[in-house]
């Protein structure tokens, strides 16, 4: 589904990596590995089209992503370092806004169910500024439970700041997504047990 050819990334005036080629098929779970600073986040941002590569092409279902940006964005979900929460809005409001602007207007009940699934039903109506780091993280992740029909998930360190049970639940949910025919590309520093065979792509080999 996702096809990356000869990708190179320039940060400031330093070439982070070059000649990255990678294909992600449906049902695959890919982990981008490599030491800090090798450009894992930069690669994920290139994959979802937030950044423009110095060189190379990213294709989604055979189309260059910058050519059919809106169609591609309908089929990709990217969760980055920042949880994308506004401090003055409640988790519920933040979640509904995120879903609505991504073309999935969602009923309040489904948002509530997603928040309950991730263990935040008690914080439903508190402003996001009073949440802890881990809770903020979870509000961001709650979008995964509303996005079953989005095929490609690109996740930057999704397991950070989660407790053991939440990690297990999330891993099972990622497995379920791959079983449905979706694909996941992610970075993580934790060893998480997955049922799906994990494909590790070592970015350090392409580092400059």
């Amino acid at each position, binding site marked *: 589904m996702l096809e990356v050819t000869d990708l190179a990334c320039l940060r400031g005036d330093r070439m982070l990596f070059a000649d990255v080629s990678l294909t992600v098929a449906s049902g695959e779970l890919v982990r981008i590995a490599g030491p800090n600073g090798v450009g894992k986040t930069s690669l994920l941002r290139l994959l979802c089209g937030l950044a423009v590569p110095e060189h190379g092409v990213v294709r989604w279902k055979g189309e260059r992503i910058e050519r059919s940006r*809106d169609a591609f964005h*309908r089929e990709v979900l990217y969760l980055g370092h920042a949880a994308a929460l506004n401090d003055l809005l409640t988790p519920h409001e933040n979640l509904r806004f995120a879903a609505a602007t991504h073309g999935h207007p969602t009923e309040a009940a489904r948002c509530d169910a997603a928040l309950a699934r991730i263990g935040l039903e008690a914080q439903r109506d508190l402003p996001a500024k009073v949440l802890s780091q881990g809770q903020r993280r979870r509000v961001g992740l709650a979008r995964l439970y509303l996005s079953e029909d989005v095929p490609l998930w690109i996740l930057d360190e999704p397991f950070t700041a989660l407790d053991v049970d939440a990690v297990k639940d999330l891993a099972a949910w990622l497995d379920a997504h791959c079983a449905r025919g979706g694909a996941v590309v992610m970075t993580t520093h934790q060893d998480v047990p997955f049922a799906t065979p994990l494909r590790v792509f070592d970015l350090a080999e392409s580092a400059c």
Partner: protein
Amino acid sequence: MLSVFLEVLRRDLLLAWRNRADVLVTLAFFTIVACLFPFGVGSESNQLRAIAPGVLWVAALLATLLSLHRIFAQDHSDGVLEQLLLSPEPAVLWALAKILAHWLTTALPLILAAPALALLFDMEQSATAVLILSLALGTPILSLLGAVGAALTLGLRGGGMLLALLVLPLFVPILIFGAGAVDAHLSGTGAAAHLLLLGGGSLGALALAPWACTAALRIAVE
């Protein structure tokens, strides 16, 4: 498609409501800047009447300038902007919604407060009406062009001063036609030409600025 526009507009208005102190501060700034001028140039009422349109326009311009960072800065720092740029809906739509929300929460209060300030400068009623009309037609250009400047300077060190340097020269024509409308009305030539130019400028900015703004936003998050 329209739902994204409405959703973003509703959210930004809700945020402005929860953060209403910001709106009031802008309004207070507008009032104070306007009230400084009599202390600087003297309280002779003929003179005040003569400078009033220019003073109120300059004050509105500066108040808008100070509020411009609000359009994108928060969303940029907490990652919402990234998510909006990943939205499958056209970016100009939500950018326009954000600009409209800015206009509604910044310019509209200024326009509503302007008649009270006009009283302080002893402006004639008909002149006040023309001033309000010129503000209503001209301030959308300030929000639209200002949003482009705000997007270009997003996340930069010293962004506020830089933003002023970028947009103030572009605001000069609006100041000329805005304040000029009142003068033209008072001199008897009629303000229609000025007001039409302001309205035309608003339409032109409406057609072009959102595109420049979204291009600048894409660059800013990269």
